């Protein structure tokens, strides 16, 4: 553990304004700790006032919408009369869409379980604190690993014909490859893509797949989970 020798000790700011504190900064500490605190405001009234305004705006919008929109209410529940399709609440329709493609143990248990585990362990991973871009170091080696991983994903999804998963995956892959191959230059968008770390790419992929699956499950699925156009 040679990290122990890399502690820095220092005294924080003006002792009259703020209580004196000793800070230990290791290499793993967030970079922001090293910066000064900057200008500060009193929570009362600056923050409280803003929160109150936010609450009032929210209440206003909700009340207006509740006057215009009616909560759905169908016939009395009847276990003998199955609607086709029977749909879960909208936030589970992504899962239901997955169930359409994959065996139940994979779509209903394995994938959601993995998502929850992945979300929980995010901060305990070897966190890339500086937010180093994906293609910054050893770009060729990383490209090989990236392409390998993506090919495995495509083969897996392709085996089950899960094309509503393949589509957003392909789109994000194309963007990541664009960030690798397109020259940096005048276009802000490519520069933005080039500066993104791996975590950004994984999360953006996850969000786009989740949104596409939920939208498809909500609007584009009809009897027998067949494809329908919502405007027909």
């Amino acid at each position: 553990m040679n990290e122990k020798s890399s502690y820095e000790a220092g005294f924080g700011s003006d002792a009259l304004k703020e209580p004196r504190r000793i800070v230990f900064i290791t290499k793993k500490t967030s970079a922001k700790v090293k910066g000064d605190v900057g200008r500060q405001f009193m929570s009362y009234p600056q923050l409280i006032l803003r929160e109150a305004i936010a609450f009032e705006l929210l209440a206003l919008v909700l009340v207006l919408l509740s006057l215009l929109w009616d909560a759905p209410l169908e016939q009395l529940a009847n276990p003998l009369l199955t609607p086709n399709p029977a749909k879960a609440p909208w936030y589970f329709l992504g899962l239901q869409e997955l169930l359409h493609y994959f065996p139940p143990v994979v779509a209903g248990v394995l994938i959601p379980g993995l998502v929850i585990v992945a979300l929980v362990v995010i901060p305990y991973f070897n966190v890339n604190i500086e937010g180093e871009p994906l293609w910054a170091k050893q770009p060729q080696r990383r490209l090989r690993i990236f392409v390998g991983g993506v090919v495995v994903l495509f083969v897996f999804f392709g085996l089950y014909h899960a094309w509503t998963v393949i589509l957003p995956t392909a789109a994000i892959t194309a963007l990541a490859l664009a960030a690798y191959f397109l020259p940096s230059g005048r276009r802000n968008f490519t520069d933005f893509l080039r500066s993104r770390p791996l975590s950004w790419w994984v999360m953006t992929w996850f969000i786009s797949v989740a949104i596409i699956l939920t939208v498809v499950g909500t609007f584009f699925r009809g009897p027998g989970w067949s494809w329908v156009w919502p405007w027909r």
Partner: protein
Amino acid sequence: MTTRSTHRALDQLRDTRVWKSIFRRGPARTNRTRSLAVFGNLFLHAMPVKVREESLRVRATYYLGSFSFFLFVILSVTGILLMLYYHPAVPMAYRDMKDLQFVVSNGVFLRNLHRLAAQAMVIAVFWHMFHVFYRGGYKPPHQFNWVVGVGLLLVTLFLSYTGYLLPWDQLAFWAITVGTNIISYVPFLGQPMRFLLLGGHQIGENALLRFYVLHIVILPLAAVILIGIHFWRVQKDGGLTVREDHERKI
């Protein structure tokens, strides 16, 4: 002129003995009394006394965490009012929905508000999580608070899901059927877990009662405790994450 006289009247009110006995302070004219206004107040003491200029900016948070909490408050209030008109029994539950529609004053509005706020809370919590992720809000020293947040996301989803069954209409019944069928796919534990949740092999009176108890007691209690920890940890971990590239450059 009127605003000035209102201000003066308020200041005089805040100087009275009764006001001071209730709020433990006079008017908040100095930074000391402004600090007291926060940490001397049971409902505000989880907030920081001072906030960085950067974390006050709208794009630092878009108030997404606040909105999630506000929606929880609105849901609690409308939910308690709805409880006054609801029996968790078959088929009374559905008749109560009809009563809300045709008999109770503003019953439709009350249910609309509860349902709408529930959908909005699911969206707000998800959005809050993604926003925090993109800002790197999970990085040290905020690791554990991220995990608490994931817990709150799950509680929010279960709250919304258990509430879905309560109207006892076709929509509710079949949505819960689809959802609980997924549980039974869990290897070995699937069937027992589904039985425990439904209080039987099929969705019936027992399932409605269990979902009701989960929806109004167990899950809200879990949410309140987790929200408390979540807010408290934000402050203990040194406030919101400030992104160098976003907020420092002006």
